[in-house]
């Protein structure tokens, strides 16, 4: 099947989960392993139907631990691979997300967040997995996490997630609000030739010269896959450039862990994306992401109508955290307002970057997202 036939070019009316699945297909994802869970199940259902049509693989595993492990296996066998889940499943995946970090397996994990902890509120939105996305697996590492605000972005950012994951050989997480996943909106899928698709760098040396974890200048090692004649070893243990375990060498540990962090930290400017709205002269800046950013945009516009100099910094990339962008607006605004559907997660990062500038947090739990009026009220009070 031609790429044209696979990608559903044109304008569509679809929900966020379906847009995400179509984004994955467009990004050339050909392997999905998952386990049913509300509110991410529609991604699995759509791919169970679509994958065979385009020659891809869908498998329902016995749990989320296995799903994540299978995704890494497929990635090492050369396919672009993803899984989708919600909080409880995301918790189970953390073990092998760490393995993907350590073995530098490109892969995408979609977490459609719901209210937690534990089984929590399966059908209600929450932004309670923001810190888990960054710190959920043990040990020091960096990952990339993106937060779509619309159904169009469910499509666009899924492709972006694959591109980043392939570029940096890092698990990339799409942190989705339940509302965005289930909302129906217009999605425009551009002609395939206009869509940027990135594939992992392959080794350009013969097998006998291939050193599987020797990084290039971008700190990312080119990746051979099983069956391509390179016959190498990979392990979750601390390993040297050859992939061999070095469990008692402080030098190898420092070099490896530092590189795994630095390949993201030092490339942060290339990775991070934010949207800045009316920030130039803003005295009150709202920092928001996901569905909440849409209410925030409405609130900022209403504030401007009332003569309040308000602006919005919408975070598209949550991890690595857009420190520079936040500290820039902190220097010019009197106050920063952070609405989140949790008890205060990303606001800690905002506070850290804002330094002396006061940060006001608006929490929302167990119900619909913030209304524009609620955010407007906070903006007004702090202007």
């Amino acid at each position, binding site marked *: *099947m031609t790429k044209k*036939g696979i990608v559903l070019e044109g304008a569509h009316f679809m929900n966020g989960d379906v847009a995400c699945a179509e984004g994955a297909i467009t990004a050339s994802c050909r*392997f999905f*392993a998952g386990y049913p869970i509300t509110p991410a199940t529609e991604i699995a259902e759509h791919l169970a139907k679509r*994958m*065979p*049509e*385009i*020659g*891809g*693989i869908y*498998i329902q*595993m*016995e*749990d989320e*631990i*296995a*799903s994540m*492990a*299978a*995704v*890494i*296996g*497929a*990635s*090492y*066998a*050369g*396919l672009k*691979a993803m899984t989708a889940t919600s909080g409880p499943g995301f918790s189970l995946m953390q*073990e*092998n997300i*760490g*393995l993907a970090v350590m*073995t530098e397996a490109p892969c995408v994990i979609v977490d459609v967040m719901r209210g937690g902890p534990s089984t929590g509120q399966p059908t209600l939105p929450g932004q309670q997995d923001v810190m888990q996305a960054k710190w959920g697996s043990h040990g020091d590492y960096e990952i990339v996490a993106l937060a779509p605000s619309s159904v169009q972005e469910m499509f666009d950012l899924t492709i972006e997630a694959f591109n980043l994951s392939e570029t940096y050989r890092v698990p990339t997480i799409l942190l989705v609000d339940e509302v965005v996943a289930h909302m129906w909106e217009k999605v425009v899928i551009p002609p395939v030739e206009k869509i940027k698709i990135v594939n992992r760098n392959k080794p350009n040396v013969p097998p006998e010269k291939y050193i599987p974890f020797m990084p290039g200048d971008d700190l990312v090692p080119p990746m051979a896959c*099983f*069956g*391509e*004649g*390179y*016959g*190498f*070893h*990979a*392990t*979750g*243990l601390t390993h040297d450039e*050859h992939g*061999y*375990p070095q469990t008692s060498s402080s030098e190898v540990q420092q070099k490896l862990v530092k590189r795994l962090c630095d390949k993201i930290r030092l490339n942060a400017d290339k990775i991070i994306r934010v949207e800045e709205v009316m920030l130039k002269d803003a005295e009150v800046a709202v920092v928001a992401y996901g569905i909440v950013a849409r209410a925030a945009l409405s609130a900022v516009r209403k504030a401007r109508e009332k003569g309040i100099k308000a602006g919005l910094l919408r975070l598209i990339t949550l991890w690595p955290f857009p420190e520079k962008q936040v500290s820039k607006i902190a220097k010019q605004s009197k106050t920063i307002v952070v609405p989140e559907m949790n008890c205060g997660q990303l606001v800690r990062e905002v506070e850290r970057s804002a330094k002396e500038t006061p940060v006001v947090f608006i929490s929302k739990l167990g119900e619909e997202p913030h209304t524009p009026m609620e955010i407007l009220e906070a903006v007004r009070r702090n202007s």
Partner: protein
Amino acid sequence: MTEEMVHPFAKYLREAMMPHIWCPGCGNGIILNCFVQAIDELQTDLDKVVVVSGIGCIGRTAGYVNTNSFHTTHGRPIAFATGVKLANPELEVVIISGDGDLFAIGGNHFIHAARRNIGIKVICANNFNYGMTGGQQGPTTPLEALTTTSPYGNIEHPFNLVHLAAASGATYVARWTALHVRRLTQSIKKLLQKEGFGFIEVVSPCPEIFGRYNKMRTGLEMMEWFKRASMVENFSDPVKAEITPEKIVVGEFVDIEKPSYERLLHEKIAQINEKALKEMSQHAI
């Protein structure tokens, strides 16, 4: 001039990973040797072999064999291997791991891979305990055996692994001890040629960690137990395939034909893919 002696199997091992971590008297080296002998006799293309291991003493095998290899998190080699096999069904995916890894923390993955009949091959070194962490009681520890976490005698009933594998749907199931070198090698050859999910349990000596608490201080003493107690009962009822101080039932228990998951999956994909293509070309008209 003396010619440098090279072991005929040297090409199958990664010299840089030597010396290995295994104790004197351990059965893991024997299992590795039998595996290498089998792929040598079958003339298997090493580029197409993927050896996957989990955590534990035998888990280091993946690093020692000179093939594509991956050393996963604890208990997850089967789940990882499932992704590999589906993504590239031409690869010969072999899991060499331990009883704790495959049947305690990884037990769920084992039964489901067998149920699906995915064409991955599992070789389990059953040494009755968690050797690498210092000899704790595990899912195959015999009743009343002493370990560091069953200091008053184990009261948990052990898994009968061949029964579990057969009941879960494996197309090939066998048990040998590390003493049955030739039979084990032939069995591994058969395993590698089967379609679908296959399983071999190798009862393996662990004198340093398990034997020492159970009146078998040396590898030889453990091997003497295997020699004294082993009874070859091919195609006997796996339910009755016991492992006790008096009797270890070994042999082949299951050898059936069943289409593998990856075959069914890829046949279906080809079918649906073709249909989708046809519909597309009709739309184009």
